[in-house]
């Protein structure tokens, strides 16, 4: 892989025309204008056909399928137009990273919305029986994106630990009799939890990846935003990653975010099949320019990733996805230069946002990604690459 390769991490917001038309809600002229505006801006020459489709709302089932693909195409073009080296489609065809997986699996039932923070929620399900893959759930989107993308593809796929951690468990651990000794209950909970996580890895995530690889996927990013939720389960997280990917013929990376990253060590020393860790740092960093240790407080943990014995690449989060602040190319440059200095090897640094950009508007996401690419170019120039 090229030094300082740039890529996105996962999700983008879904355009209003996609959300409303898919839900059967009336479209405003602003929604249609947005489809036209971005079609022109992203050089999607076929976009008048999308306008015709939107004018035909309410949409039937096949038309909705077409709508999802339009959204996917627009997102691919947004990422390509921003100049990224590796792209996907901002998960436009999925409901959401967690829900899409459990909706295509056996053994789960939805329980309702649960808040993650502020006004951000996800639909949380419960494991109510043994879990397994009902049908491969990324094949259709991958086949489509593969047919339209011009840049290299990296497929984001939610990991086993996160799926289990974000679910209630009503099957593997049922007896919460609080009159029993706490230690006895704790041991039963841990043992049940391990069975749950590894069942997700072996029976859902791994067969789904095998299907993707069969279609030609070469790089799969295992998304694990929940990985550090339980500090005493980090070895289980690593075990689940290995159970999901070991022996499969593709490049595997993982994405970690919004955690105390120190917690991951030493557990991730066991994840020798992980070629890259994409990690969010910008949220914790200063907005001032500078490449000194003191200037970059958000990146203090990166020597630990550098020192992993299997020498993974670090996907360096340089763009905060929880703010509309547009990082300047110079700020991006300085974050990269600091990391390259710590690693002493630009081939082991990739450049990414902290996480998926779905909480930002397309306007903001595009501006952030363009500056990320521009900042990477400044860093390449500074390093003589």
């Amino acid at each position, binding site marked *: 892989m090229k030094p300082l390769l740039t890529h996105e991490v996962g999700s983008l917001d879904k355009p209003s025309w996609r959300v409303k038309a898919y839900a059967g809600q009336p479209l405003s002229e602003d929604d249609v204008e947005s489809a036209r505006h971005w079609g022109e801006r992203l050089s999607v020459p076929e976009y008048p056909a999308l306008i015709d489709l939107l004018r035909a709302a309410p949409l039937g089932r096949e038309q909705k399928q077409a709508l999802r693909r339009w959204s996917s195409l627009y997102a691919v073009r947004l990422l390509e137009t921003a100049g990224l080296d590796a792209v996907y489609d901002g998960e436009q065809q999925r409901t959401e990273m967690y829900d899409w997986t459990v909706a295509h699996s056996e053994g789960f039932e939805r329980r309702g*919305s649960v808040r*993650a923070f502020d006004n951000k929620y996800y639909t949380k399900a419960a494991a109510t029986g043994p879990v397994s893959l009902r049908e491969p759930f990324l094949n259709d989107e991958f086949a489509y994106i593969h047919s339209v993308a011009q840049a290299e593809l990296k497929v984001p796929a939610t990991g086993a630990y996160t799926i289990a951690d974000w679910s209630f468990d009503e099957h593997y651990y049922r007896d919460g009799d*609080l009159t029993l000794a706490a230690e006895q209950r704790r041991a039963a909970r841990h043992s049940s939890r391990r069975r749950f996580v590894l069942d997700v890895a072996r029976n859902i995530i791994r067969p789904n990846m095998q299907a993707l690889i069969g279609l030609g996927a070469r790089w799969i990013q295992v998304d694990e935003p929940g990985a*550090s*939720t339980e500090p005493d389960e980090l070895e289980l997280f690593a075990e689940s990653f290995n159970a999901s990917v070991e022996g499969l013929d593709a490049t595997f990376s993982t994405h970690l975010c919004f955690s105390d990253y120190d917690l991951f060590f030493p557990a991730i020393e066991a994840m020798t099949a992980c070629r890259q860790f994409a990690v969010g740092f910008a949220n914790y960093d200063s907005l001032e320019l500078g490449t000194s240790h003191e200037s970059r407080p958000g990146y203090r943990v990166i020597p630990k990733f550098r020192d992993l014995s299997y020498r993974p690449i670090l996907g360096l989060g340089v763009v905060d996805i929880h703010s509309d602040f547009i990082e300047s190319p110079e700020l991006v440059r300085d974050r990269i230069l600091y990391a390259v200095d710590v690693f002493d090897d630009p081939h082991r640094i990739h450049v990414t946002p902290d996480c998926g950009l779905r909480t930002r508007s397309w306007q903001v996401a595009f501006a952030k990604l363009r500056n990320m690419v521009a900042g990477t170019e400044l860093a390449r120039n500074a390093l003589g690459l």
Partner: protein
Amino acid sequence: MSAALPDPVLAYQPGIYPRSERVVAATRGLERGRVTQAEVDGAYREDLDDFVQVQKQARLDFFSDGLLRWQDIFRPLAHAAGVPARILTRWFDNNAFFRAPELETPLGSRDVILDAIVPDGSVPLPRVGTLPSPYMFSRAAATHADRNQLMLDIARDVLQPAARVLAGAGCRLIHLQEPWVGFFGIEGGDVAPFERALAALGDGVDAGIVLHVYYGDAGRFADWLRRLPVHAVGVDLVETDLAALGTGWEVGLMAGCVDGRSSIVEDEERTAELVRRVAETVQPPVLYVSSSSDLELLPRDVARLKVQCLGGAVRRLTQPVAP
């Protein structure tokens, strides 16, 4: 009332209560410019009415407003003190996050405007108000200041005025959330400053202070907790061994008998039996019955059933059906 039970045994549901699907959709729509503020306000009003109704039906003894508009347990207080809260931080071992209050400058010079924490007039009396404990507040804050000094400042300049406002608004209990001690523990050198902060917080507050230690085993601190300068101490029985709590407590006990993080709804009869065993073991002067943590991390329909279970369990003990 059973001879083995303390008098009174009382139930309440503190903390942040989950929002309805309607509020979820409305707030999401507002952020994307698809709905109006009036529609969002209407959705919140329905949620508050619903939560009040649930508490009445469950016949709880104290009423909460469910902190339905609070984005996290610190945010309204941070805003009240004019303190920024930006950095997204994991809420213990949950898939949930708060924005850490940034407390780099002394609080004392600020005007603290607490209108936003006053419960709505539709919430029946007597009420329970919820605040973060000063220890957790000082540890969760983004700061380079001395955290024990910060704890005292927060207790004196923010939490004590807030507790007085809540007491003046009919809150007979001020419930302090203290998961930090439960999850991370507390060092010996922090104990005395914490006790001073609790005393400062309660100074002149005409309400009982309940310190709720959760997300961890309170049994290891039981000898200390039972002597704190508070009206009652809450424990999380999902994480705590009942036998480790000791017996003959000097302060009241709030028993977290319903799991605030599991979607499995507890059986009312088994919960009542658990409460009876808690009472027999700990023998507190007053026993409150509640959830192990607040119910924010559950879908609302599940939370509703848990509140009903709490009230039902206490009624089984205090108003037994004649044979």
